[in-house]
């Protein structure tokens, strides 16, 4: 068994040659193939970060890509490297000699060859998009000073502690009053808005929970009426890369999705012998304008269908107080070798999902 399957620290695996190249290649292709709309984390940024990791590894600036053993995606250390490399690139390029200087001396000493690679790496990533670890925006959609009512959209992208990238859009209406503390503050002209630190923290902390939970949680806040909560999740990813020492796979996939991990483990009994990848992209909406409550997500049924009998009465009472319905969906990108596995999981759950083939 490859040592790359071992955890090097909590939820962390270290991918090196020859695994990182096919692994990152397939992740990048999967993002391209997934046709993500703007309810998901920005595809260009994520793709840019993965490409930066690939370039850095090729330039031998790092010895490994750290991945989250649960989600199968690069972890915070890897994404932070990309961010900090972008941040220091301009300053480092200023201090470095020009490319011709290093090209002329690359055979003189190892340091020149290394600096040439580094310079080319920094030049190649300059101005390219990359994913922030967190990004938060508040947009004012409508403001009626007469009634003190304002409609906002909160847009949060977060590299979640579960190892997946999450984007949350919350549309809400706030009625301001002297007796209430506002969760979102407008500037004096009523044109721009910023969430209070406490409200932002609430959204941030609850980002791991589903749209239904977020809707109820936000709607509980006095003076706030939630219209729509939408979550788009990139990941988890299941991959296998054959090496002479054996297959390299995520070590803890059951912590991301027990159902998918179970099917995956069975599939691994007869692997294809090629690098394979299954990546999922969940969409989860709780909104007033959803007509029918439904989950088309084979991995996450509705809360109402799995709640314990003892809790059902209380749950139904809570839901009656809130005017929204839930729709969950999930699409997949899969290599040909595991496409059958994905279709079987969907069929077993009775869902009809988009499965994009990754060649």
């Amino acid at each position, binding site marked *: 068994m490859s040592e790359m399957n071992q955890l090097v620290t909590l939820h962390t695996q270290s991918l090196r040659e020859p695994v990182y190249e096919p692994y990152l290649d397939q992740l990048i292709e999967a993002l391209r193939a997934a046709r993500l709309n703007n309810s998901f984390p920005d595809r260009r940024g994520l793709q840019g970060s993965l490409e930066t990791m690939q370039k850095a590894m090729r330039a031998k600036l790092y010895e490994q890509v750290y991945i989250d053993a649960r989600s199968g995606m690069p972890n915070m250390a890897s994404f932070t490297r990309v961010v900090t490399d972008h941040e*220091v690139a301009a300053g480092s390029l200023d201090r470095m000699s020009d490319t011709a200087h290093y090209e002329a001396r690359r055979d003189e000493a190892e340091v020149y060859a290394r600096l040439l690679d580094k310079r080319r790496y920094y030049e190649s990533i300059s101005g390219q998009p990359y994913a922030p670890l967190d990004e938060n925006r508040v947009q004012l959609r409508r403001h009626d000073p007469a009634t003190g009512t304002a409609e906002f959209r909160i847009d949060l992208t977060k590299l979640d502690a579960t190892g997946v990238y999450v984007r949350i859009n919350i549309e809400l209406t706030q009625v301001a009053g002297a007796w209430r503390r506002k969760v979102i503050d407008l500037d004096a002209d009523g044109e721009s808005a910023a969430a209070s630190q406490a409200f932002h923290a609430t959204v941030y902390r609850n980002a791991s929970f589903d749209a239904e939970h977020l809707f109820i949680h936000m709607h509980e806040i006095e003076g706030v009426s939630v219209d729509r909560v939408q979550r788009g999740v990139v990941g988890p990813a299941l991959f296998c890369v054959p090496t002479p020492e054996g297959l390299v796979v995520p070590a803890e996939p059951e912590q991301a999705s027990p159902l998918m991990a179970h099917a995956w483990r069975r599939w691994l009994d007869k692997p294809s012998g090629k690098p394979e990848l299954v990546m999922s992209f969940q969409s989860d909406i709780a909104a007033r304008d959803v007509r029918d409550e439904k989950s088309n997500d084979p991995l996450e049924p509705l809360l109402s269908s799995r709640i314990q009998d003892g809790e059902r009465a209380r749950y139904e009472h809570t839901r009656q107080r809130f005017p929204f319905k839930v729709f969950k969906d999930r699409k997949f990108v899969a290599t040909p070798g595991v496409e059958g596995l994905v279709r079987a999981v969907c069929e077993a759950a009775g869902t009809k999902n988009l499965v994009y083939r990754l060649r």
Partner: protein
Amino acid sequence: MSAGTKSISDVLSRDVSYSGEGISVRSLEDNIHKEREVQDGKVDELKTLRERNVEIQSTMTEELKKLRKFSDYMDGTATGGGFWAGFKEMVSYIPGLKSIAISKRSIEELLKQQYHVSARRVKEAAEYVDTLKQSEQELYKEIDRINGKIVESAENERVALDYVLELRDSKATLEAEMQALEAGSVEARKVEADVDKIQALLATHSSNVQLYGAAENRYASLKDNTRKLAETIRNLGQDIQQYTTAASIKLDMASAQIQAIGRAADASVVMLEMKKSLDVMTESMNVTTQFVSDTQVFFRQNLDKLVDELETFDESTTKMLDENLKKSKEIEERRIQAAIDKALERRAKQGGGGAPPTAPSSPPASSSPA
């Protein structure tokens, strides 16, 4: 033509070739100045690094304080009221929000931001390792070049010395020949003419002996200082690399723990684990801060000393160059004086007036025989 005369003729007509671009007091001064500029540039780089080092150190200290504050809150030492008193101070409740508790900041977000800032600081410090390694490489290349100059100067000095000895022997031969000739005869004048030629060549090549010898010594001093500078840079680069590598590894290993504990802290669960995670991060910061402190000491102990040494080197170089200039001038003055003396003597013989010759402190070898 006798064998001796033929030999002297060979010596006089020989084209003595020195390797390199030729030498003069001015060209030596210019070359040394150019070499010193390389050193000065590297010393300036080190000075810039020292300033940046101070900046990183103060930032790191602030970040470490923040982490320690968190850590102290977690174990209650900040408030003296124990864990819960510390926790209450960290977490506040927004009034008017029914029963929903909202702390002002997400601990997960806060830790993530701190992680990001710390990772950037470590990377900024690590970037200087490459700058230093490039400088070190360039200085070793410079040492190679200086070594070439030293060898060239030594070889040229030897060529000059050999030639000067030949000239001296030829001069002695001619002076002996002259003893046998009638003073003022055509033959004597011819020999005299050859002696003068030899004397002129002696003056030129004696000067070369002196200049190439001085150049060899000065380049050797310059090489010693360049080597010291290269070693200083190499040691500093190795220290920074060691510390930043250690800090980077710790940060890489701590990332998942920091996220996990941040999330747990946000959920008000397993708060004590947060203390453990913070200790991991604090350790990383400690390593980095330690590196900055150590390099400060390193700078104080080495860079300032090095700059002093270079300044001393400057003084001695200037002194040597000044001495050379002075000596060259003296030789030139003696030569001029000899020419004047001879002119005055001839005028006196021809019955003209004029002031008696002023004798130089030591009569030049090229002056007319008594």
